[in-house]
């Protein structure tokens, strides 16, 4: 049976969450294994949210933030990107490939791009196989 990765997507409610909503309503290939987690701003993303997602069984975590200079709260997207970079480096150090963590900029209108990104991301996580944290001890 094909490996179906569990993916958590943290989406800013001012952009990607709306794009995801539109993409879902259009019913045009939205992968069912993507779990959306709505954030009031990508700046609300905490490092621990990402780590907990992996602890709870995620094989990949995607972060969607508003485009540069488009954050409703001015710099939330910049802060989110910095935290993602920091967390990626931490994941590598503990034996989880940083490619399992992806960061994207998106506007609420780009629902087709959202679909492309999650489909491509889905395939890349499939290629990496199950996250090593899922190994039973």
């Amino acid at each position: 049976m094909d490996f179906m990765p569990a993916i958590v997507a943290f989406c800013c409610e001012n952009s990607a969450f709306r794009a995801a909503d539109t993409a879902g309503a259009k019913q045009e290939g939205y992968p069912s294994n993507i779990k959306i987690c709505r954030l009031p701003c990508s700046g609300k993303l905490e490092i621990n949210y990402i780590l907990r997602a992996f602890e709870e069984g995620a094989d990949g975590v995607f972060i969607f933030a508003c485009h540069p200079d488009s954050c409703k709260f001015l710099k939330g997207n910049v802060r989110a990107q910095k935290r993602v970079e920091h967390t990626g480096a931490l994941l590598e150090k503990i034996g989880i490939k940083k490619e399992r963590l992806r960061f994207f900029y998106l506007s609420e209108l780009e629902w087709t791009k959202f679909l492309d990104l999650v489909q491509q991301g889905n395939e890349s996580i499939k290629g990496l196989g199950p996250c090593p944290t899922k190994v039973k001890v």
Partner: protein
Amino acid sequence: MIIAEQKEISEIINMVGDHRKILVIGCDTCVTVCLSGGAKEVAILASALRLAFRVQGKQVEVNETTIERQCEIEFVDSLESMAKDKDLLISMGCGIGVQTIAERFFHLPVVPALNTKFLGLPEKQGVWVERCQACGQCVLDKTGGICPISRCSKSLLNGPCGGSQNGKCEINDEIDCAWHLIYERLKALNRLECLEEIMPVKDWSTSRDGGPRKMIREDMCL
């Protein structure tokens, strides 16, 4: 406040070694403010350790808690119920916190997750700077409120030295010359005459040269 930074995760994992029941302990005081050992950082470290041990195929139980102050025995006492069944305590407090926990839980190993750096303040978000070396003999009254011990690279008491250039230190041009700052501040206060007073050789016995220090206030002793 005390400024500290987290050790590399690989170093912390090495310190855990073969221990299997761990408690990660944060401190709500200085290290919370300098974003290195508060409840949020404890949650991140505990989560990272759980993930790391899972990747390594080890069964390690990692619990977490944060107390008000690790440098006061009364607060450390509150760890009793959580610590009793653990075989390793990881302190995310400063060096004082680690030692207070070690004294209180004499038969339990305690390891530091942080490197304690200096006494200072946040200059801006994410940047901390040194302001005091706890030398035990404050001269800030003579230097316009700017400490030459901690802020002059040579801790000169009668500066500046010949390496001061355009208000910067010869050690690194990102470091302000403390004596330039002192001059500017005393000038603004119209107290430049303070600089005419030669400060005598400092008695370093009140600093680390006098060995471990102790302060006793008889009026406060019970």
